[in-house]
């Protein structure tokens, strides 16, 4: 492997995270902002799985691989990411439920027009 591919996955995760943050900070639409937040979340999965990868490794499932015959990638990070993917979606749903109510009560989803809580 070249030097670049040694860090590329991490750099991609960082890029995705920062892109999501940028989108969140400059968003003109709360629904779009929630979408950006889920982009940030995706970055954490990429980082976790990249950390757990092992060259030449196979999936840590021994239904058709004899244990010990091949190296396997780290199952722990996969378990962490797997549960978080589903849970992240429900958290997104909760945020969207709040956005729905904001749209109802304020008549807009543009954060620039929400000016009640100040000072």
């Amino acid at each position, binding site marked *: 492997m070249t030097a670049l591919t040694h860090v590329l996955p991490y750099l991609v995760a960082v890029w995705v995270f920062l892109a999501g943050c940028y989108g969140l900070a400059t968003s003109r639409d709360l629904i779009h902002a*929630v979408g950006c937040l889920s982009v940030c979340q995706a970055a954490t999965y990429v980082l976790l799985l990249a950390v757990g990868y092992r060259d030449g490794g196979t999936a840590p499932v021994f239904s058709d691989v004899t244990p010990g015959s091949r190296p396997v990638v780290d199952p722990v990070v996969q378990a962490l990411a*797997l549960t978080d993917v589903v849970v992240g979606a429900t958290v997104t749903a909760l945020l969207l439920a709040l956005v729905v109510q904001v749209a109802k009560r304020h*008549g807009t989803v543009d954060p620039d027009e929400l000016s009640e809580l100040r000072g």
Partner: protein
Amino acid sequence: MTETVIVVALLLVAVAATAAVAVRDPVRQSLVLAVLGVVLAVLFTVLQAPDVGLSQLAVGSALTPLLLLLTVRKAKRRGRRAERGRSAGGDGP
């Protein structure tokens, strides 16, 4: 070989994520997010994480965009009265 696939998948993820942020219209964004979900699922599978890939495929490409679209539908319907007379904030056809 595997290495090339991983690099390509990673670059696709980076591009899709950037697009998902850059697309400002929430309807189009949710479609880009669906694409991002699929690309992520592919990446996870080549990273030998089929469990996570499956999860991501179900959630990222179906559930999240669907929720976003439903929210857009509700919000736009609601907001229309307020926005009448103005150009409909960036999501006009």
